[in-house]
């Protein structure tokens, strides 16, 4: 069964006021249990608005969202329940840290869920472990940590709620290459080991290509593409026409094609690129790999 099902979602900012703007229009798609979905789209395409719908921070102007088969807004008073099912990590989440110790901050979500102290403890340690938060940090103030470390604590604070779906908005923004790699591979490990679904919003096509199994492309508030990563990057030219960048390695193959060389352009990772080149050499009867 789909874990998140979006049906004809429409959202208008400042409805009824002059200057009302439609952020989402007729958005329908579903995310299956265990999927790793990347969401891409130019700035202002409605990505942030869409993901804040997933845990009920925005209420659809029309259409509905089913989480685990239940209509989120059937009973608006019970909306908090869905906040625990869909964990949302915002951009620059380190700016939400507030507790005296790292432990208490990670425990904030699980405590709000009304869990007992033992269960809270178990979850804090589990989340800290997944996010590479060392045990020695747990009793420190979060404000003593470096930027990248704070980021990991903040993400642990959401993972500790053990959400069925983990949604991350640009989790690696502003980090150096090592920090990026570390956070994203931790998210991937969490996805693999917990079996939860993950939704990753990112501007970095290289990251999406590397981690996502499926990609949703939003454009001007509507779904432009929703397919496997391979099939989406095979339409690289269309993506570039939308003003999106594609991985550099894909650009190389697009340039080859424009030089009149007959080669497939659905390449989005280095190993696949090597394979494609070797195959093309073989087909041409040239010395291969």
């Amino acid at each position: 069964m789909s874990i998140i099902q979006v049906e004809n979602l429409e959202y208008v900012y400042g409805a009824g006021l002059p200057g009302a703007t439609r952020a989402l229009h007729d958005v329908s798609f579903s995310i299956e249990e265990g999927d790793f979905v990347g969401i891409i789209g130019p700035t202002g395409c409605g990505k942030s608005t869409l993901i804040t719908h997933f845990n009920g921070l925005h209420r659809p102007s029309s259409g509905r969202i089913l989480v685990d088969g239940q209509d989120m807004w059937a009973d608006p008073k019970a909306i908090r329940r869905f906040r625990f099912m869909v964990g949302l990590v915002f951009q620059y989440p380190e700016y939400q840290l507030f507790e005296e110790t790292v432990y208490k901050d990670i425990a904030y979500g699980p405590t709000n869920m009304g869990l007992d102290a033992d269960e809270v403890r178990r979850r804090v340690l589990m989340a800290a472990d997944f996010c590479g938060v060392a045990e020695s940090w747990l009793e420190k103030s979060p404000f003593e940590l470096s930027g990248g470390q704070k980021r990991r604590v903040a993400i642990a604070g959401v993972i500790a709620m053990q959400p069925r779906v983990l949604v991350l908005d640009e989790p690696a923004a502003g980090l150096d290459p090592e920090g990026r790699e570390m956070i994203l591979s931790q998210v991937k490990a969490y996805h693999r080991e917990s079996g939860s679904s993950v939704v990753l919003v990112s501007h970095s096509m290289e990251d999406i290509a590397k981690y996502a199994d499926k990609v949703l492309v939003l454009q001007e508030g509507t779904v432009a593409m929703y397919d496997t990563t391979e099939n989406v990057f095979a339409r690289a030219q269309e993506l570039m026409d939308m003003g999106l960048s594609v991985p550099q390695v894909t650009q190389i193959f697009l340039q080859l094609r424009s030089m009149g060389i007959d080669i497939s352009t659905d390449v989005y990772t280095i190993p696949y690129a090597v394979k494609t080149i070797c195959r093309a050499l073989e087909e041409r009867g040239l010395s291969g790999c």
Partner: protein
Amino acid sequence: MSDEKMLKTENITFAYEEDAAPVLRGVSCEVRRGELVAVLGANGCGKSTLAKHFNAILLPTEGKVWVEDMDTADENKLLDIRQKVGMVFQNPDNQIVATVVEEDVAFALENLGVPPQEMRLRVDEAMELAGIYKHRAKGPHKLSGGQKQRVAIAGVIAMRPDCLVLDEATAMLDPRGRAQVMKTVRHLNRDFGITVVMITHYMEEAAEADRVLVMSGGEIVMNGTPKEVFVRSEEMKSLRLDVPQAQELCLALREAGLDVPTDIISTEDCAAMLARLLQTGRADG
């Protein structure tokens, strides 16, 4: 580009507190007038601390920093130094002072006591250069990140500095904003001869520079053209830095047993090389 010296550091050491471990350990470097220099390095390598030495926001614990022939430790020269070396920071929101774009661009000139008629001309000129003239009457909160960052650049350019230091000025921007800022910076460098020092951790941006300095542990560990630096991909990786995918692809192809050159860093060069390989079976022209 001339051989004239713009910035120079002589064996500088710096620690934020007296007993703390130094963040800079004997950094010596020189930036020539008109150069576009990128400083790459992982978080905590000291690159932002170095940047803040270029216009006397920080003074070295040991060693000297020169802006042309002015010692940054000379307090009488402070305003001259700040006017000569403009600085743009990471967070666009935290460097805009006024509630209207053009008022903000005028801020530095107002501080310097420039007469109003001349100020108007220089403000308009700076806004044109940064490509934000059409937004001049807007409030900064109505602008995108890339636009805000260009307002910050215009506010600095209005001082007519000889050198622009960008301290991770693109780190918080989306790809479009980054492209806008980079375009503006290139324009200022190429067409107006403004020296640029760009602190970044995006290797794509560094690839466009004339020269790349790589920092690690408070020291400069590499110094050369982008090509010279990026071909040392093993070393770059050990310093926790990325190399362009074009370079990675060449290395992977080599590992697969193909005879391809490894000094390629741009997508264009890589595509050209692959085209030759697929047409003739040989990578070198």
